[in-house]
Each structure stands twice: as C-alpha cells, then as structure tokens.
C-alpha cells in the first residue's frame, strides 16, 4: 500500500459538487422557513432622521421589518480579532442597527423578513428613510493630511511600525537607490457563493446556524458574544462553502442578523447576501499606496529597505492588511524601516483578501527590485540570488526550511529564463511586444494559537471516521484530511471518511492565513496515529494476538493489518483484534499544541514566479502568455489539489495585475461597479499556459507533517512578475494596479 500523502487523490466531495448535490448554507432544507433581506444605507456618513416602514410592513408576505428602533441591542460588540486566534472573530468592532448613525455606504439599516426572498427584497424598497448627511471620506486622496501611524494594526496582532539598524544613514550612504510609490485599487473577493446564513432556533436556548464560513467555531463564539448566550446554546454548521478568498474568514453581520430576525418572527430565517451586497458586507482589500526605498551597493547587495504604506481604514478599527511583513524578511537588508500610515474613512473595516498584505507588499518590493536590477545592470534573478538571506533578516535565526534558491532555479529552467535578452522592447511578435518578468514569492507561516483537535474512531470492520470542525470552502481540505488519516492509521483512503463543517466537532481554528490544512492536518495526524498506537498497544497486550508481547515500536500497519516490522507475516488486522475482543469501535481525541510564537527559527514559505506577456504595441492591451510558478510549501499532501490551489492563486495574481479594481464614487460614497459584470475577474480566455511545480522541503519545526500551506503563496509575486514583464515588453514602468490599457496607450 503506497502512502496516500503526496498522491493525487481526487476530491472526495468532487462528485457531489459536479452533480449539484453539495448542500450550501442557503440550500439546507428547513421547514417553515422565512427569508430575510438586508436593506443598506445609501449614504456614507450621517444619521437617519426618519424611517417609515409602514408600507413595507403592509406588503404581501411580510412578517417583520427590523430597524435600529426595534431590533434590540446586542449583548456585547466583540473586538475585531483575526479568526486564526480561535476566538470570537468579528470582521469589525461594530454592530449595525444599534443606533441611528451611518458610518459607511452599504451599512445595514433594516432587515425585512417575508415568506419569500423576492417579497422581502421588494418590501425593502418600500421603506422610506430620511438621512441627514455629513461629509464623507471614501478615498485616500481626500484625507492624506489626516494620516496617523497606529501603535498596532490587524486586530492588535502586529506593530504599526518597526525598524532595525539606521535606515536613514544607510540610504544616504547607498551607492544605488530606488525610490518608488505604488498605488493599488481596492479589490473585492467575489467567491461564487454569496454569503448566506440560515438560522433555526430549536427552542429559546438552542440555535443552529447554517453559515458559509471558513470557521464554524469562530461564528459560534462570535454569535455567543453578540447574542449573550453560552457557546453550548449555539451550533454552527457549514456543510459546503462555495469559495471565500477571505470574504468568509471573519464573522460579519449577517449570521447574527439572521439569528435575531429568526427569534423575532419565531420561524427559521434564511438570509442570503446579494451579489451587490457582497461588495459592502464582508470587507475588501483596502485602497492603498506603498512607498519603497531600496539602498544598495554597486554590486546589488541591499543595504537598506524603507517601506511605508498609506491606506484607508474604517472608523472602528486600525486595520491594514499586513503588507510589510514578508517584504521585511525577503532579502538581506541590515537596515530596515517599515511604517503603516492609516486614514480613517467611511468604509467597512477592510479584511483579508487573497494573500492579504503579501499580494500588495511583495508587488511593491519586487517591482522595485526589478528597477534595481536594471539600474545595476544585472539579471533580476541574479539580483535575488545575491540578496538571498539564509537566515531571517529580522531575527537573525535560520529558516526552518527555505527552498527559495531551488525554486528560482527550477522556475528558470521551466521558463527558459536564461535566454532572455534583458533590453526592454527587444522582442516582437507582429503587433505584440513580448516581455518576461520575475518575482519572488513569500508568505508567512502563520500558526494557530489554541490547541487543534480531531477525533478518530475506528470501527470493527476496519473503517474509520475522522472529525474536526473545519469547513470545506473549496481548498480540498476534506480530501487532504482523508489522506492524512489513512496514512496515520495505515488503511486505504476508501476506508476513511472525514467529517467536518460543524462547531459540534472537535475545535480547530478557522482555516485562514494558508494555515487551515496544516492546523487541522496536524490534529488529524495525531488523532490517527494515536488511534493506531492504541490498537497496537491492545494487540501486544492481548494473549490471543499473534503480536502478543511484541515491542509496539516494532509494529507497523499496512492495509489495516498490524505486523512486525521485521516479520511482516506475523500480525493481525484491526478488525480481527476488535472482533475477538468484542469491541465495536475505538476512539481517540488527538490534540496538537501549536509551537510557541518564537520557535527559534524564521518560518516562511517561499517561491518564484515568472511570467511572459504580450502587449499590443498600439492598443495597449496586455495578455499574459505564460506563467511559471515554483513554490516550496513544505510537505505537499495532495499534488493535484495543491497544484490547483497554487494555479488558482497565480490566476488571481493575474487579475490583481490587469483587471481587478473596485471604483469608489466619492460623491455617493458607494462603489460604482458592484457587480460581476463591472468588477472584472479573469475568465478562462484570459488564463495563459500556467506551469506549477513544487519543491518539497523538509521542515520539522512548523508542525508534525512539515506543511507550510499552499493557499495563498500562489498569488504572491504573480502581479509583480506580470508588471515587470510589461516593463520588459514596453519599456514603461507600472506603478499602479490594475494595469489597464489606457496606461499603455
């Protein structure tokens, strides 16, 4: 029996998905169901002076209209905390409809409950709301002068500024300097499934919420605080989730509003966000600007890096996506300064969006690196190699594992990088200017804080159920867990069933920060191997077992049969042992305690991205022809799903580079393109030839299986490689994303 880990097991939920049999949170069959629709503020700042719901209340099918006047107060408004922490994880330190104030466009101001979603939606348009508006800030340019440096960002988890050495002096002494400012349009996640919650009160003290989330437990804890009830009265179920990209990483207002509405009408309530509401209800990547100043010696060795970021945050939280983290450790740079500058505006708190922070921070750094390489006159890849840091430049500690130089080498081979003529505008194919570019990819290895748990139960027919409260939002985690459990127990994957997606199951953290699979995988691995060891222990202690008195360390399991390592003919199956001893099942709980924050190593995931673009010489149209991404994500559990994740990430990078932008109308304080027709994401026709490869580096530090995560690193550096390729093709540097054709006319 060859190991399942590292293979290419097809998705265990694949057949259900393609047959339309997966049950999403808005599809769970519930009797006596009512439908709620949120009504959003049409102004960005001000106060509700009058609200007339009478016509809406009279409309056919309407059961209730809730506003700040009758919703009732929530018990507490928990503070924003990233869901990786394993606690309550509201997307912002705010809950709407508690008073008459409007802080941002799209803020919920009413909830209509009716017998059908169409009637609820229609009744929502019959509510008359009068506002007193106050001036709003919705663009960076409106309030640069009000920028401040926060003490901490990111729910308090990261410092607002940091430094090492003397960056000003080092920059003054640098032989070569690159100083550039990059601007980024806001981005929205746009998963295929809009967020949905179905709330069912079984009695006054038992609530079940079917919710589309990356973390059922995070929803449970958040609802417990908002509703003022103990966690035991709240169960959160997430059977299948149609993608997230960060929009479901935190807990936003809709599950609580669904629960409150359901309690109000005394019926189960389903609340589904519309596509348009997905632009105002689940955060986004904030509008931002980043200034990079690189100082280097004439040979390209970086001596100083200054990285400042200016971005828009909400009235409630000091949120910035952590753009400075990975760039600060990407290369040797003895002198460093990183500062976040925030401007408060009339916006929902921004949130995790596809490689939050790294996607923008590494874009800025890697574009500046490309300029530096040109300035010095060396190959961009050679510049990276000259600045490769074998230790974490921040702490000076060695990397737990790296693989970065191997990634560069493999990517260069796959791409044919060596033959590249470095001169801009040196290649042409008819009307198309051809260029190639590269970038490094870095993503931190984030670790959960709380213990991660999984339960493994083996039945006396040799099949096993493995459980953990993780949800499957398209990453393939259920498939990978099936493989981990099978290998841990020594049985084929067909005999394993992984069950997740409920807060009743052993608690794991929300699957965020590319850490979901490694967090739950570590717990599953421990549960499965401990269960195996328990059965071996019973066998060697059993007088009737062929393994009686054997040293457990000498017993291994193949295809469900425990055998002596040096005499594989001696042994018995799990099933034989259990039948003989009248045991229906054996169960253990595996608990993985994540390593402390400081493990004595630098922990990061690395990769290399190469891209070839064609730019229409007259019309400015950019089309990506080829992308090569090679990553070193530690152990790869499933090559197929991992490579799909990485490829998907690279295509999102293409979207970030060329297409994605949410456009704010500052007069209205609302997004002007909140639809999938107007917010452009790449379509199949945009997808180039994408080559993904992985370098498996061994890592004993991060977790028992040595996984570093593939969720987001595929995004990182992709946009920079494309922008650098656009420069190589056209000779025009790009400082603003997305690179739309008017910038190249």
């Amino acid at each position: 029996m060859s190991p399942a880990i590292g293979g290419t097991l097809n998705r265990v939920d694949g057949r259900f998905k393609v047959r339309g049999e997966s049950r999403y949170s808005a599809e769970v069959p519930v009797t006596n169901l009512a439908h709620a629709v949120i009504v959003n503020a049409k102004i960005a700042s001000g106060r509700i002076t009058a609200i007339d719901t009478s016509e809406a209340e009279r409309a056919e099918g309407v059961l209730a209209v809730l506003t700040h006047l009758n919703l009732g107060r929530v018990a507490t408004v928990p503070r924003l905390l990233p869901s990786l922490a394993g606690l309550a994880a509201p997307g912002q330190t705010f809950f709407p409809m508690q008073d008459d104030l409007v802080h941002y466009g799209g803020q919920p101001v009413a909830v209509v409950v009716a017998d059908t979603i169409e009637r609820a939606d229609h009744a929502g348009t019959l509510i008359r709301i009068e506002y007193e508006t106050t001036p709003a800030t919705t663009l960076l340019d409106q309030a640069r002068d009000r920028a401040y440096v926060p003490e901490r960002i990111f729910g308090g988890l990261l410092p607002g500024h940091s430094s090492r050495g003397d960056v000003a002096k080092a920059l003054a002494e640098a032989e070569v300097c690159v100083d550039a400012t990059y601007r980024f349009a806001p981005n929205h996640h746009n998963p295929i499934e809009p967020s949905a919650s179905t709330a069912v009160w079984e009695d006054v003290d038992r609530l079940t919420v079917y919710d589309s989330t990356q973390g059922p437990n995070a929803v449970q804890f958040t609802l417990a605080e908002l509703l003022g009830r103990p966690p035991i009265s709240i169960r959160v179920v997430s059977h299948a989730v149609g993608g997230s990209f960060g929009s479901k990483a935190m807990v936003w207002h809709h599950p609580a509003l669904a629960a409150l509405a359901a309690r109000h009408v005394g019926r189960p309530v389903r609340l589904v966000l519309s596509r348009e509401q997905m632009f105002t209800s689940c955060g986004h990547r904030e509008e931002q600007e980043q200034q990079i100043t690189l100082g280097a010696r004439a040979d390209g060795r970086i001596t100083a890096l200054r990285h400042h970021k200016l971005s828009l945050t909400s009235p409630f939280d000091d949120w910035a996506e952590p753009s400075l983290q990975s760039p600060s450790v990407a290369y040797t740079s003895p002198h460093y300064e990183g500062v976040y500058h925030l401007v408060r505006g009339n916006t929902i708190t921004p949130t995790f969006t596809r490689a939050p922070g790294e996607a923008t921070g590494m874009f800025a750094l890697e574009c500046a690196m490309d300029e530096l390489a040109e300035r010095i006159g060396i190959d961009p890849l050679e510049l990276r190699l000259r600045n490769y840091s074998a230790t974490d430049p921040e702490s000076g500690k060695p990397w737990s594992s790296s693989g970065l130089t191997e990634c560069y080498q493999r990517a260069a081979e796959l791409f044919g990088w060596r033959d590249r003529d470095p001169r801009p505008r040196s290649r042409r194919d008819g009307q198309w200017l051809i260029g190639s570019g590269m970038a490094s990819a870095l993503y931190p290895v984030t670790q959960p804080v709380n213990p991660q748990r999984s339960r493994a139960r083996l039945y006396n027919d040799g099949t096993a159920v493995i459980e953990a409260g993780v949800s499957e939002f398209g990453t393939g985690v259920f498939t990978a867990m099936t493989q981990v459990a099978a290998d841990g127990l020594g049985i084929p994957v067909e005999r394993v069933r992984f069950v997740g997606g409920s807060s009743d199951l052993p608690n794991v953290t929300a699957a965020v920060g590319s850490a979901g699979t490694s967090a739950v995988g570590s717990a599953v691995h421990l549960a499965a191997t401990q269960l195996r060891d328990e059965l071996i222990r019973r066998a060697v202690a059993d007088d009737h077992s062929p393994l009686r008195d054997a040293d457990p360390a000498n017993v291994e399991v193949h295809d469900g049969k425990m055998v002596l390592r040096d005499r594989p003919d001696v042994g018995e199956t799990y099933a034989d042992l259990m039948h003989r001893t009248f045991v229906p099942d054996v169960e253990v709980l595996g608990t993985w305690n994540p390593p402390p924050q400081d493990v004595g190593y630098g922990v990061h995931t690395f990769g290399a991205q190469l891209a070839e673009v064609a730019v229409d010489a007259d019309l400015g149209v950019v089309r990506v022809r080829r992308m090569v991404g090679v990553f070193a994500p530690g152990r790869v559990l499933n090559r197929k799903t991992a490579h799909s994740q990485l490829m998907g990430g690279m295509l999102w990078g293409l979207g970030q580079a060329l297409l994605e932008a949410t456009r704010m109308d500052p007069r209205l304080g609302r997004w002007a393109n909140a639809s999938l027709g107007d917010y452009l994401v790449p379509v199949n026709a945009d997808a180039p030839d994408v080559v993904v490869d992985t370098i498996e580096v061994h890592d004993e530090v991060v977790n028992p299986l040595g996984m570093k995560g593939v969720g987001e690193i595929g995004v990182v550096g992709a946009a920079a490689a494309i922008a650098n390729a656009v420069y190589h093709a056209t000779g025009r540097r790009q400082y603003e994303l997305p690179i739309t054709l008017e910038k190249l006319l």
Partner: protein
Amino acid sequence: MRPVSYSRVADVGTAIGTVSADPESAFLAGGTTQVDLMRIYVEQPHRLVDISDLPLNQVEELPGGGLRLGGLARMSDVAQEPAVVRRYPMVAEALLLGASPQLRNMATVAGNLMQRVRCSYFRDVAAGCNKRTPGTGCSALDGVNRGHAVLGTSDCCIATHPSDVAVALVALDAVVQTEGPAGRRSIPIDDFFLLPGQTPEQEHPLTHGELVTGIDLPPLPVAATSRYVKIRDRESYEFALASVAVAMSVAGGRIAEIRLALGGVATKPWRARAAERVLDGAPATIEAFTRAAEAELAPAVPHGMNAFKIELARRTMVRALEEMAQREGTA
C-alpha cells in the same frame, strides 16, 4: 423584484395587443436584460408577456438577395448561420464577441438591439440618472465614467450604447421590421437608435407594444469582406471599450467601397460617415486610414476617465482598416 404577472403568448397579434393595452407591461424575450433590470428595480413592469414562442426565430432569404434575421432568433443561432457567416462575417463576429456562450444561447437579436445601457448609475436606483428618471441629472458626467461615450453625447447623458451586433448592422444599413398597434413599419437602423440629446429616456422610435419582428440585411457584396474588431480589458465576457465594424473592397490600391461603424465609444451604434467620406476612393494606406479616423473623432468630447477612448478608438479604426486591407492583399 416587484410582484409581476407573467403570460406566454403564441401569436404576434396577441403579443402586441396585450402589451399595447397595458402601459405597465413589457415584452420578455431571452430575459437577459429585462429580468436583470427588474431584479435591481430599474424596470418595474407589472406584467411580462413572454414572446419566446412567436414564430420569429428563423433566418430567411429575402427576395432581392438579402437576409432577414427573425427578431427572436438567438444570438448563438444567428452567429452560426452559414449564410450570415459567409455573406456578413462581421455580424457573426460581433455576435460571437458579445456576452458569454450562456447568454448568447438565451438572448435574441431584437432583445440585443433593445438592451439598455450599462452605465452603473443607470443601474443604481439611488443615483441621479436622466435616462432612468428624467430630470434627476447625470451622475456619470463627473463620475466613474471610464466606459462612457465620447461621441454623440449631450450634457444630459453620456452612456455608451452597449450592443456589438448593432454596430455591424449600422455599418450594413440594416432595416428593422416592426409591427405594432398601428401596423407594420420598416425603420432604417440608423434611425432606430436615438441620440440622447435632452431626452435620453427615449432610445428608440418604437411605440409601446410595438414589436421588432425582424432585421433585414440588404444584399451587399462588400459585406462578404468585413470584420468586427473589439477591444476590451479581458479576453471575453466584457463590453467593448472600442470596437470597429468594417466592410471594404479595394481595387487598384484604392478603396472602392467602404462601410465603417464604431462601438463602445458612442451613445448609439456609430456609423462613421466622416471617415467613410475620407476613405471613399482614397488609397488604402495607413495615412488615409489615420486621416479618416481623425476626421471621425474630431467632434469627440472626453469626460475625465474616458479621455483615453478617443485615442483608443482612433488606433482601433486604423488597426481594423489596416488588417482589412492586408486581408484584401492590396495594402
């Protein structure tokens, strides 16, 4: 969505009778525009009359050598029709470059001509928009207007006409056949689309309940050497930032016949008559193409974010003409 009643009709007379008798009713063809706009409350009819069953979905030969596209013919069917592909390639190309395969399988060609603008303020009922609610102002003038028009605009409305196939039809001088309470009409396609002027809410000369029964393509040998070029941010599933429909024949290095229209840059599918005048009889050279494009775009008016469209349209015209000339093997 506002509550709405729905009925399906089987004959043209009933369709026209039902809709014209009720000012709050609307035809429903493929529904890809109609239902979309109802869901966001931009259109709020009380009654939908589904005309999908009407016998108007064929492509037929016309006596004089032209072709009639049935008003209810699906975009995908027309694009595959051999007579269209062979004799009017730019019509087939324009259809195939529009929307997505799923939409084209639902959408009809008459519905395509009747589709509403994609201006985001038109679609946002809380924003001022003269086209949706006359007299409320045009939010796009100083707003997010990257996709808006530079030709045929007024101070009341600058929304781009979104259709692709209409651009090809305008270049061909197609004729829209209608039937209404007052009988049948043939409307030259250029008259079928109205400039916004001071009445942007009026987009067509149709009366309420008047049905587009067909679109006639005239017999036009030059249309066999035609093409449709569409420029956009992503490779598929997006409206044009600029597009060009061109039919051209070249004899002895000179342009013998030229038909040219622009999309994505004007408030109606834009017949480029000024450019045609420059090109008619001119040598098929880049200089002539450039002069023609410049002549056409001379009256263009930018509005902030869309200023680039003037240059983009100019270059796209030159590109389309150049490629056409190369294909003709004479440039």
